[in-house]
C-alpha cells in the first residue's frame, strides 16, 4: 500500500540534485542545512552548476564544500568577500557567492565585507546571522542582542561593556555598490520560500552585473543558545525578529 503512493506524480519534494550524499555535521535544528538546500536548488535551477564557485568561511559552515557539488574555495576567517572579488574579477561569467556567519562577516571581516559591497562586486554574500559564534562554542558575536547571554558575556550583552549589535545589512543598504539587500529567515515553509526567491534574485543580479547583493538569513543556533530546536525558533521570533526586521532593505535590480 505504501509503495503505491511512491510515484513521480505524487512527489512533492526531493533532495536537491547538487546536495551530496554526505551526513551533515550541523546540529539538528540548525538553519545552515536549510540554506544549503536552497542554494543547491537555485544553482541547479539556474543551470549554473558548472559555472559556480562558492567561497566558504570559517565558522560552523566551514565544511560547506562537503555538501554542495560545486567548486569551492575556503577563505580565511572574514576574508571571503576579498577571495570572491579575486575570483569574480578574473572569471566574470561565473556565479560567485560567499557563505558567511555573523562572526565571520560582521566582525573579523567587516572591512572586506563593506568594501566588496561598496565596490559593487558582482557577487552575492549569504549572511547567516545567528547572533552567536557557533563553531567556537557560543561566544558573543557583533550581532548578539543586548542582554543575550553567551560564553564571553555570561551576564548578558551590556552595551556599556560590549557595545551595540551591529546591523550590517542596514549598513549595506546605504552603500552605492549594492543592488539588492534583504533580510530573510528559514523558520517556516513560507519563509523558506521567500528566502529562496531572495537568494535567486541575488544570484541573478550578480550574473547580470547589477552590483553586490547581500542576503541576510536570521538564523537559529540551538546549540549555542542552549535551546531545543523548537524553542530556538520561538526565541528567534521573539527576540531576533524585532531587532533584525525582515524584508527587502534595498532593491534597485529593476532600475
Amino acid at each position, binding site marked *: 500500500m505504501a509503495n503505491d503512493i511512491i510515484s513521480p506524480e505524487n512527489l512533492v519534494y526531493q533532495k536537491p540534485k547538487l546536495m551530496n550524499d554526505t551526513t551533515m555535521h550541523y546540529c539538528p535544528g540548525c538553519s545552515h542545512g536549510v540554506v544549503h538546500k536552497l542554494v543547491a536548488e537555485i544553482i541547479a535551477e539556474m543551470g549554473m*552548476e*558548472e*559555472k*559556480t*564557485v562558492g*567561497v*566558504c568561511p570559517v565558522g560552523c559552515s*566551514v*565544511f560547506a*564544500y562537503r555538501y554542495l*557539488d*560545486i*567548486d*569551492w*574555495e*575556503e*577563505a*580565511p576567517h572574514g*576574508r571571503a568577500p*576579498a*577571495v*570572491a*572579488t*579575486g*575570483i569574480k*574579477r*578574473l*572569471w566574470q561569467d*561565473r*556565479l560567485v557567492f560567499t557563505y558567511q556567519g555573523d562572526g565571520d562577516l560582521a566582525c573579523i571581516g567587516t*572591512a*572586506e565585507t563593506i*568594501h566588496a559591497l561598496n565596490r559593487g562586486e558582482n557577487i552575492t554574500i549569504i549572511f547567516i546571522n545567528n547572533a552567536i559564534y557557533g563553531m567556537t562554542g557560543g561566544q558573543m558575536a557583533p550581532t548578539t542582542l543586548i542582554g543575550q547571554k553567551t560564553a564571553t558575556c555570561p551576564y548578558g550583552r551590556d552595551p556599556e561593556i560590549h557595545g551595540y549589535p551591529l546591523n550590517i545589512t542596514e549598513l549595506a543598504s546605504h552603500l552605492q555598490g549594492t543592488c539588492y539587500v534583504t533580510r530573510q529567515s528559514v523558520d517556516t515553509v513560507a519563509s523558506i520560500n521567500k528566502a529562496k526567491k531572495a537568494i535567486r534574485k541575488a544570484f541573478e543580479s550578480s550574473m547580470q552585473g547589477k552590483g553586490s547583493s547581500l542576503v541576510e538569513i536570521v538564523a537559529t543556533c540551538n546549540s549555542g543558545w542552549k535551546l531545543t530546536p523548537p524553542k530556538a525558533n520561538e526565541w528567534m521570533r521573539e527576540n531576533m525578529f524585532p531587532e533584525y526586521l525582515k524584508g527587502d532593505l534595498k532593491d534597485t535590480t529593476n532600475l
Partner: protein
Amino acid sequence: MAEQEITLMKGNEAIAHAAIRCGTDGYFGYPITPQSEIIETLAVLKPWETTGMVVLQAESEIASINMIYGGAGAGKRVLTSSSSPGVALMQEGITYMAGAELPGVFINVMRGGPGLGTIQPSQSDYFQATRGGGNGDYNVIVLAPNSVQEMADFVDLAFELAFKYRNPAMILSDGVIGQMMEKIVLPPMKPRRTEEEIMKECPWAAMGKRGGRNPNIITSLELQSEVMEVRNIHLQEKYKQIRENEVRYETRECEDADYIIVSFGSAARIGEKAIELAREQGIKVGLFRPITLWPFPSKEILDLAKGKKGILVSEINAGQMVQDVRLAINGALPVEHFGRLGGIVPDPEEIVEALKEKLIK
C-alpha cells in the same frame, strides 16, 4: 627577431611592465612606500584595455592577498606587492596559500622596521620571508633581485616556479632596487592563457566544474590529524624537491679569493664595489650572491668556501642571512656579519673596513 626595447626605468616600474608582458591575469594591491609605483604604473598603462589584465586597488593588504588567494585558487596568474608592514599583514593569506598549495606571486620592496619604521631601504624582512612568516610548517620560494633588470625578469620566473610547484613565490626586493633607475630590456610579450589552457595547466583550480568533472575544493583545512600529517609530509617532500632543483646564485671573482663576501639584493651591488676596493688594496675577495634565498644555496656556499680564510656576510639588517651561511659552513670557517640598520645603506668602504677588522685583523 623583434627588436629589443631598451628603456630607462625604476625597479618598481619594471615590475609593472613585466607583469603585463608575462601574461599576468590580475594585480591586487594597496599603496605603501617605497613600492607604490607598481600599482601607479599599472594604472597609467591600463593593461585591462590591452591584455585584459585586471588591476584593482584593494582596501588593505589583507584584502589584496586574499584577492590573489581567490584568483590563484581559480587558476589565474595573480600578483600583489607591498612593503614590510604591508607584507606583515599578508602573512595570513600567504600561509593559507601555502596550505592550499596555490601559485600566487607577491613582491616585498622592503623598508626599515620594526613597526611602521622608515620608508628607507632595508633587508630586515629576511627571516620573515625565508622562515615562512605565517603559521605552520611551510616555505615560500624567495627570489632576491639585485637590479632593475632582475626586477623585470623575476616576475615571470616567480610565476613559472609558483605554478610548477603550486606554491607561493616572493620577490624580495628593497627600496634601493625599487626606486633606482637603470637601463633594462623588457621581457617579450607573452599572451595570457586561454580558459582551455588554464583548465589544462591547472586541473585542480576552482573555476566552476566545467565538463561535469568532480568539484575542485581549495582549502587548507583538515581536522583529522592523521590526514593533516600526510598533507604536511607531502608539503615537506615538495619543499625538498624545490631545494634540490631550484637553487640559484651568482659568484664573482671567487676562484683566487681568500675571503668571500656573501650578500643578496642591493647589498650585493654594494658588495661588487667592495670587492673591487679590497682588491685595489691587495686583499683577494670574491662575492657570493644567493639569488634564491629560499631555497638557500647552502651546499654551494660550503663548496665554494673550501680553502678560503673567512666569510663576511654583508646585509642591510642586524644579521639574518648570516645564520643560514653559518649553518651551511658549519664551523669550517669564520663567518662574520656586517650590516647597517634602520634604513641606512652601507658604503663599500665600510664593508672593506669590516672585513679587515673582523676577519683579517
